[in-house]
């Protein structure tokens, strides 16, 4: 009971021995420790803030977006460059295919006309030369066989 009353009594006192030792601080600190402590803490706070600024959620998000954008741009550039080359290669092939398949809608008509004319001209030359060759051959035949040309004209 005595102890219980002591527990609830703010006047509870330590022994004289304990009281005599109360003001003796056995723990010492390095020189100027308390002068430097606030600046040491402030430095750490600002270092953390700087780190937090660099690695904060919004900064990380922006860096992520920027990274994704750069990757997308590079990928896009590579893709379009590649498909562009493939497309022009395809275009060469398809032009050949068009030419080979006779689809001439995209070909200049004047070129076709010139080509046609030259072909006609060369064919008629050949025909003339052949005709000339035939005439020469015929005349040679008549001469070699002593045929009377007037008789042939009369019969014709």
């Amino acid at each position, binding site marked *: 009971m005595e*102890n219980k009353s*002591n*527990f*609830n*009594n*703010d006047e*509870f006192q*330590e*022994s004289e*021995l*304990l009281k005599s*030792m*109360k003001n*003796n*601080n*056995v*723990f*010492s*600190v*390095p020189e100027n*420790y*308390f002068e430097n*402590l*606030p600046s*040491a*803490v*402030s430095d*750490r*706070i600002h270092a*953390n803030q700087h780190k937090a600024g660099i690695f904060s959620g919004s900064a990380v998000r922006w860096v992520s977006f920027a990274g994704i954008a750069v990757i997308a741009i590079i990928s896009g550039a590579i893709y379009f460059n590649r498909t562009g080359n493939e497309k022009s290669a395809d275009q060469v092939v398809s032009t050949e295919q068009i030419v080979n398949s006779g689809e001439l809608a995209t070909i200049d008509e004047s070129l076709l006309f010139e080509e046609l004319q030259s072909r006609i001209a060369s064919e008629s030359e050949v025909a003339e030369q052949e005709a000339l060759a035939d005439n020469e051959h015929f005349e040679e035949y008549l001469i070699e066989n002593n045929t009377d040309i007037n008789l042939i004209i009369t019969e014709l």
Partner: protein
Amino acid sequence: MTDYSDSELLELFRNSDNPDFAFNMLMRKYQQKIYYHIRRIVIDHDDANDVVQNTFIKAWKGLEGFREDSQFFTWLYRIATNESLTFLKKKRSKFLIPLVNVERQLSEKLQYDPLINADDLLLKLQKAILSLPEKQRLVFNMKYYDELKYEDMSAILGTSVGALKASYHHAVKKIEKYITGN
């Protein structure tokens, strides 16, 4: 240095362009009390230095949300106590040593630490304090050295005033017995 109250410094922290100034003032006001409170728990100066810095950094981070439902210094003591106990807990788990060995290790440190200046009697008192259960040790230090009111200790430790008084009473009796050898 102008003496500002805690409320004025907190107001200055929240509403001025330079919260560093107000926080610096708060640190200077409480650094010694907080440091020695921590030092009595962890004993070693380097450990106390780490813990006190972590305490103030956490206070800085939490100060924006501090609503003054409790007094600033009891809030700061609570952070410091929690940080100190967490430190000891980590130390125990790190070295896989049981509770009693940490206290024995701290007790041995008392004898050889150049930053501890104690005669035989004061050394015996410190060893007696370290022999107490953790909660009793906290209560004894806060009452005997820091001379905190039971109401404030109750706010810091989350324990009823009656339980704190009983705890302190038992602690004193154990220490006196330890010192006198009776």
